[in-house]
Every structure is written in C-alpha cells, then in structure tokens.
C-alpha cells in the first residue's frame, strides 16, 4: 500500500458512524460534564448557576459514604480481577494448547455461552445458588455440614462471585489469544534442558503472557467497576458502589447534577484504565489497530 496516499472516497463511509458517535457519545459526555458544574438544568431553570458544590460534596464527604463507595468499587473491582485471572488463566492455557479442533470449539462455546445470556439472567442464577434457601445452603444443611445457612449473598462475597462469573470470559478470550501466540517450542526447549513442567511454565510461558495478563486484567477491572446490576442485587445493604450511588442520585434523589459529578469521577478512573489498556494492546498487536 502507498504510504502517503490521500483518503479514498470510501472514507466517506465513516460519516454515519461519526455522526452517531458525535451526537450520541461525545456530546452527551460533554453534557454530563457540564451538568456536573451546574446547580440545576440550565435550559429549563433560569436560576441555575455554575458551581463546584457537587465536587465539594464528593471531596469533603460530610455524610461519610462517598469515599467508602469509591473504595468499595475499586476493592470489588480488584478482587474480581484477581480471581478472574486465577480462574481464567488455566482455562485460557488449556484452550490455547488444545490440539483437537472439536475440543477447542466446544470449550470456546462453553466460554462464550455465558457471555450471551445477559447480566440480569446470570445474576439471577447466582441468587438462586447463593441465597439462604439456595442450592449451596440447602445441600450443606441436608448433608449436615452446617446447621444454619451460610451468609453467601447480600454481601461483598456474593457480589464478587457473580461478577467473576460474568467477566471471566473476557479474561479467557484475551489470554487465549496471547498464549496461543507463544511458541510452544520455547517451553519444550526449556524442558529438554532439564526444567520441570512447572518451572518451564513459570519461567517461560508465564512471563511471555504478561501483556495478555495485563490487558485482560485491565479489561475485567474496567468492566467490574462499572457494574450496577450485580452489586445492587447481590450486595444487599452491605454493598454500595459508585454506579449504585449514581443510580440512586438519578432515581430516588432526583439530583442529576450530582449524579453527573459522580459520573465524571467514575469516568476519570475508567479513562485512565482505557488509556493503559490501549497502550498495552498497541504494543501487543503491533501494526494492526484492532483495539
């Protein structure tokens, strides 16, 4: 392909997407940021004025809930990411190294199928498993292992379990691609030089898959800090995350301006992650710009 060629007429096909993204993505986020600096709706309310009070409310946090919400959002995101990595890595490794095409297709199907079943449905599934009269507690009581139900739900534990289930496929898909590209002969070489299987894995394959680990982790972290359905159904009164707080401000407190400020805080955290993710991916894929 010519290096310094001008855009071809095909470039015009970008126009509809660009229009959609400017009108329904870029501008709205601008509106959200703007609203976060207003006391009300500047179009319908002539008395609305510019203010930083929503940010002050968040920063000084006199009610003592906003910082906690931010921390528990990040904490839940982090735990979900680590557990997803621990669960996703063996699966991804297995899939990447599988010889049989059929086996590969079946495992891939099993990984993708949960992705296609919707967050609400999967959260429901975990509620039926983890609640007091759910599958696990019923079995544990029937078998005489515990006398009263374990608190598996309406807390951070249940939230993390369901979040891991929802986001682990993203981890697996990211990791499989990276592990699949590592030359298997490197590991074989290490083994023929006397390294045990574990050592060959830890010293050869694992370091080479580090970019995939980072990319997958950032993706899962970004997804889990913005989760709303799962923490609000599985967390009960124990868990309050930033997305839940935002929904409260819109739904029950009717304060879209403060919700906007909270949104900007969450957006900044996410943007930092997205930038890091894109850098890693750019280094991973080299010339091809498939983010």
């Amino acid at each position, binding site marked *: 392909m010519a290096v310094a060629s001008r855009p071809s007429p095909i470039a015009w096909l970008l126009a509809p997407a660009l229009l*959609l993204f400017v009108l*329904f993505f870029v501008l709205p986020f601008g509106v959200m940021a703007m609203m976060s600096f207003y006391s009300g709706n500047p179009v319908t309310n002539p008395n609305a004025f510019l203010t930083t009070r929503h940010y002050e409310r968040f920063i000084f946090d006199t009610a003592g809930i906003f910082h906690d919400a931010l921390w528990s959002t990040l904490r839940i995101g982090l735990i979900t990411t680590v557990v997803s990595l621990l669960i996703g890595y063996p699966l991804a490794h297995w899939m990447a190294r599988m010889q049989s095409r059929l086996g590969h297709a079946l495992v891939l199907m099993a990984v993708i199928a949960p992705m296609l079943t919707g967050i609400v449905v999967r959260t429901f599934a975990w509620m039926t498993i983890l*609640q007091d009269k759910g599958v696990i507690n019923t079995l544990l009581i029937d078998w005489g292992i515990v006398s009263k139900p374990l608190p598996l739900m309406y807390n951070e534990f249940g939230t993390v379990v369901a979040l891991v289930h929802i986001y682990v496929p993203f981890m697996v898909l990211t990791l499989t691609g990276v592990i699949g590209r590592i030359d298997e002969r490197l590991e074989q070489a290490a083994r023929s030089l006397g390294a045990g299987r574990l050592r060959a894995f830890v010293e050869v394959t694992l370091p080479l898959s580090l970019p995939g680990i980072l990319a997958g982790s950032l993706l899962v972290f970004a997804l889990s800090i913005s989760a709303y359905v799962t923490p609000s159904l599985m967390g009960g009164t124990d868990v309050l995350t930033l997305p839940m707080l935002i929904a409260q401000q819109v739904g029950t407190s009717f304060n879209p301006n403060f919700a906007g400020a909270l949104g900007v805080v969450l957006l900044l955290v996410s943007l930092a992650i997205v930038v890091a*993710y894109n850098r890693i991916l750019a280094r991973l894929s080299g010339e091809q710009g498939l983010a």
Partner: protein
Amino acid sequence: MSAPLQTIRNKQPFDAGRAAYLTLNGLLLAFLLAPIAIVLAFALNPTPYISFPPVGVSLRWFEKFFRTPEFTNALLLSLWIAGCVLVLSIVIGGACALALARGNLPGRSFLTAFFMSPLMLPAILTGLALFQSYLLVGIGRPVWGLILAHTLVAVPYVIRTTLAVLHNFDRRIEEAAAVLGASPTRVFFEVTLPLIRPGVFAGGVFAFIVSFDQFPVSLFLVVPKGETLPVVLFNYMKFDLDGAIAAASMVSILLALSVVLVLERLIGLKAYVKL
C-alpha cells in the same frame, strides 16, 4: 499453575500433573456452565418459590411468563428494539469498518480505538450522559433515543467482526476484478460486499444480543410502562424470586443460544479468538 510440583515425566502411563490440570479445568468449566443449568431446573420446577432440589417438571412458569402482559410487552419491546439495532448497526458499523480498512484515513488506529471506546467506558455512564442530554434538550425519553443509544454500544461489535474479516482477505481479489474491467461500484457490490458479509452478519448477531440483554444503557432511558425485558426482570427480582424469572431467563438464554448456533453456522466461532 498447570502442574503441581512432581517429578513424574509425561512418558509414564498415568500423569498426575496432567490429570490435575484437566480436573481443574473441568471444574472451571462447570463453574461457568452450572448456573445456566440451574436456571433451567428452576424454570421447570413447579414449586411456588425457588427451592432445591427440584421436585418435578412443569411448564407453569413459562405459562405465567407468557400470560403476564408486563413480561410479554417488555419482551416484544426488547425484540423490536433489538431488531432495529441489528439493522442500524449493520449498516453504520459495516460502512465504518470499510472506511477504516480501505479509506486510507489518517489516524486510523486512533479512530479504531475511538469507535471501540463505548465498550470500555462504563455503559451506565453512557446511559447517564444520554439521559442528561435528552433532559437538557427537553425531548423526554423517546423509544428512538433508546434505539440509538443501543446502536451506539452495538456498532463496535460490528466494526470489530467486519474489520477482522477485512484484515484476513486478500486485496488482490478486488484488484483482479478491477483489472478485468469492473467499475469500482461493481467491485464493491460483487466482490467486497459478499466477502465481508459473514463478518457483518456475525457482528449483527452480537449487536442483537447486546441490545436484547442491555441493562445499564437502558436503565435511565426507559419510561414507566415502556421498559425493556432486562429492566422489568431486574425490578421484579428486587421483590420476588420465583420461577417466572427463571422462565424468562430461559426464554432469553434460548434466544441467545439459537443466535450462537446461527453465528457458528455463518463463520465458525474460531474467528473470535483472534479478536
């Protein structure tokens, strides 16, 4: 992570490390799939509350689901919206991918990342930002606003699958057609379009599912009595956990699974690992 510390070599008949590795992965697969199986059991279990183990098989919850207007209206609305999103995102996303791959655009990788960004930014914020914009402009919460919001988060999938196909196919096929005298329009309609069709369709299938299962973007954009199925289910689940939700879940899952089968038919799932 794969093999425990052992000195057993893989030449021996029983390989404990390998067995442990396979057992672990089997358990992880079970973790992924068990919840779906359990939902099916509850959907067919006739007891009034979610209880385990199931005592029988009945279709009463499916009956309740299909006899409750609240659910069926929401299902129809969700299907209608997902259908519109499918068409819109195929057209917009397919065109965009072509422009990105063939348009000689400056800043191509930046543009690609930009068009992928709705997948990375919190969807609930996309919903919030659109809610505030609609509020500011004073248009209320129209259905077309919801459809375009879903299209925005669905288009990246179409772009992604189409780009993957475009990336793999040989440009010389197009050049050959041009050399043989086909006009650029004819090359486009008779060579390029048929070649990218599987990628566009696969993306469309994703777009349908993304819209049909969409919750965070819809949350602030639906109106009372005009809620999509996931929102209705969510609100119902806050107070009631009975078999109707399980049946509704099964309806969604069956829809999604049939869509996966279509997808497998169209291009084979293998193409997705490379994304």
